C-alpha cells in the first residue's frame, strides 16, 4: 500500500536497517522493545516486543485473598493506582452484590478523577519531553506532585495507594482535605493554560503532532483502541457515560471528541479531559453526602460461585476486570485484567508505518502506555 510510495521518496537506496529500540531506550517509557525496520529513517514495519515487566499479577491473585489483591492492582498501572483499585473493588462488589455507601462512591470518584489528572500530567510531560519540550515535563511533574500530596494525606502513600476496600473505603477524609482539593482544582486550569501556551499553538509542536499517526474511527474500533486515543478518532465511547459506575451519573461533564484522530487530537482530548476532571471533582465535593464510608461487608470476603466482568474508564481507557469465583476459596479462581495500555499498544505498528523514527517516539507517547499494565 503506502510502502511503495514511501520507499520511492527517499533519495538513496540503502539497505533496510533493522534497529532495536529498547528495552533500554530513553523514550520507550520503561522496558518496551521495538524492532524497527527502517528505510533510511522511515519506518517500514515494526514489531512490538513486550513482557519485560511481566510479574504474573493475574496468577498471583489466585494465591491472595480478595482484600490483599487490591495491593496487587496498585502495581499494574502504577501512575494510576487508584483507578486500578476502583476497577477491582467494584468488580468484586458486583460479584457479591454489595451496596456501597453514597459517601464512599463520591470519594472514590474524587480519587479516580484526581488520579486521571495525575496520570494525564505524567503523560503530557513525557510526551512533550519525547518531542523535545523538556520544560513542560518538569512543570507537569510539579502539578502532579500536588496531586500526590493530596493522596498522601488521604491514604499515606504517594504511588501505590491501596486506597479502596471491597465495600467502601478504609477511612474517611481527614479534616481540611476537601479544602485542599478545592484549592488544587482552582489552581490547575491556570496551569493547564500555561502548558497550552508552551505547546498548543507552537508551530513546531503543531508540525510534530498534526497528521502524525492518524487512525480513523473505524480502524480504531477494529483494533480495539480505548480511552482518549479512541475518542480522539471521533468515537463516542466513555465507560463513565455509557455504563456509569461509582457516582458518575450524578455529575455533569463533557466527553471531548477529536475529529482527525492524529497525535494532536489525542493531545487536545486529554487536555480537555483534565479540565473536565476538575469539574467532576468540584461537583463531587459540592454534593458530598454524609454518612459512613464502609458498607456492610462480611468479615470474610467470599463471593458466591460465578463470574463477572466490570469495566471502568481508567485514564488510559477501558480498564476491565473479569473474576471467576468458585464460591469456596477466599481467592479468585481466575482473575483476568483487560489492560487499556495493552490494547492501545496494539495500534502502534499501524500508527507508525510510513512515519519517521522521530515520530515513533511521539507515537509511543501519544498512546499513553504504562509497561506495568501492559505486562502485568
Amino acid at each position, binding site marked *: 500500500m503506502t510502502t511503495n510510495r514511501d*520507499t*520511492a521518496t*527517499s*533519495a*538513496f*537506496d*540503502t*539497505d533496510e536497517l533493522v534497529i532495536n529500540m529498547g528495552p533500554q531506550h530513553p523514550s520507550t517509557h520503561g522496558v518496551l522493545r521495538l524492532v524497527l525496520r527502517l528505510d533510511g529513517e522511515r519506518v517500514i514495519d515494526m514489531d512490538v516486543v513486550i513482557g519485560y515487566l511481566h510479574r504474573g499479577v493475574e496468577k498471583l491473585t489466585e494465591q491472595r485473598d480478595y482484600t490483599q489483591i487490591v495491593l496487587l492492582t496498585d502495581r499494574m498501572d502504577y501512575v494510576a493506582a487508584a483507578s486500578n483499585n476502583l476497577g477491582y473493588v467494584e468488580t468484586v462488589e458486583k460479584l457479591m452484590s454489595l451496596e456501597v455507601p453514597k459517601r464512599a462512591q463520591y470519594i472514590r470518584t474524587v480519587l479516580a478523577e484526581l488520579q486521571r489528572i495525575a496520570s494525564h500530567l505524567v503523560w503530557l510531560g513525557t510526551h512533550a519531553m519525547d518531542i523535545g519540550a523538556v520544560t513542560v515535563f518538569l512543570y507537569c511533574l510539579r502539578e502532579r506532585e500536588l496531586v500526590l500530596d493530596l493522596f498522601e494525606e488521604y491514604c499515606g502513600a504517594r504511588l501505590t495507594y491501596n486506597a479502596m476496600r471491597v465495600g467502601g473505603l478504609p477511612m474517611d477524609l481527614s479534616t481540611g482535605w476537601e479544602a485542599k482539593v478545592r484549592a488544587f482544582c482552582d489552581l490547575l486550569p491556570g496551569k493547564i493554560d500555561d502548558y497550552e501556551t508552551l505547546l498548543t499553538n507552537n508551530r513546531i509542536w503543531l508540525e510534530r503532532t498534526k497528521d502524525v499517526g492518524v487512525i480513523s474511527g473505524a480502524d480504531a474500533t477494529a483494533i480495539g483502541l480505548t480511552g482518549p486515543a479512541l475518542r480522539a478518532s471521533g468515537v463516542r465511547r466513555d465507560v463513565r457515560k455509557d455504563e456509569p459506575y461509582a457516582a458518575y451519573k450524578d455529575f455533569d461533564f463533557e466527553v471531548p471528541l477529536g475529529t482527525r484522530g492524529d497525535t494532536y487530537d489525542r493531545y487536545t482530548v486529554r487536555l480537555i479531559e483534565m479540565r473536565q476532571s476538575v469539574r467532576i471533582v468540584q461537583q463531587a465535593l459540592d454534593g458530598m453526602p454524609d454518612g459512613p464510608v464502609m458498607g456492610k461487608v462480611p468479615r470474610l470476603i467470599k463471593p458466591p460461585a460465578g463470574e463477572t466482568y466490570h469495566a471502568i474508564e481508567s485514564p488510559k481507557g477501558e480498564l476491565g476486570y473479569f473474576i471467576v469465583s468458585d464460591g469456596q476459596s477466599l481467592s479468585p479462581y481466575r482473575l483476568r485484567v483487560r489492560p487499556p495500555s495493552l490494547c492501545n499498544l496494539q495500534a502502534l505498528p499501524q500508527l507508525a508505518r510510513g512515519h519517521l523514527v522521530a515520530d515513533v517516539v511521539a507515537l509511543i507517547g501519544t498512546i499513553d502506555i504504562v509497561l506495568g499494565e501492559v505486562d502485568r
Partner: protein
Amino acid sequence: MGTAIAFYILAALILTGGVLVITAKSAVHSVVWLVGTIIAIAALYVVQHAEFLAVIQVLVYAGGIVVLYLFVVMLVNLKRPAEAIVHPQRRERTGLLLGGALLAQFAAVAFYAFNSPQVGTAATYSARGNVEAVARALYVEYLVPFEVASVLLLVAMVGAIVLARRDA
C-alpha cells in the same frame, strides 16, 4: 627560508597523503587522507599568496565535494570486499610502469624548469589581499566562462538528481 621550510613540509604532507589515498584499504580511510591532502594543498596556496583560492579549496573541496564522497562511501554498503574480483585482463604492473614513465617525463620537464629564471615572491600583484584581484578577473575578464561554469554545475546537479533517484 621560511617559504622553503613550509614548502618541504607541505610537499611531504601532500605526497604522503596522496599515496595513502590510493593505497588505503578502506574507502573511508581514503577519503580522510584525501581531506588531509586537500587541506595541505590549501596551505600551499597560502604560501603562494593565493589566499582566496586556499579558502575556496577548503570550503568547496574539503567542505563540499569530499563530504559527498564520504556520503557515497558510507551509503554504498558492500557485502563483500570492494576489490575482490580481478578482471583477467588487468595488468597492474603496466599501470605502475606507465605511472613511472609519466613521472620520468615530468622530471625531465621539471629539470628544465629548475634552470628557468627565478621569480620573486608574489606580493607585488596583490597588494591588499587578492580577493579583489581574483574577483575582478572572474567577473570582468572571465565572465562568460564563469557563467558557463554555473550552467555546467546546474546541469551536473540535475544529472546527479536524475541518476540518484530510485524510480528513474
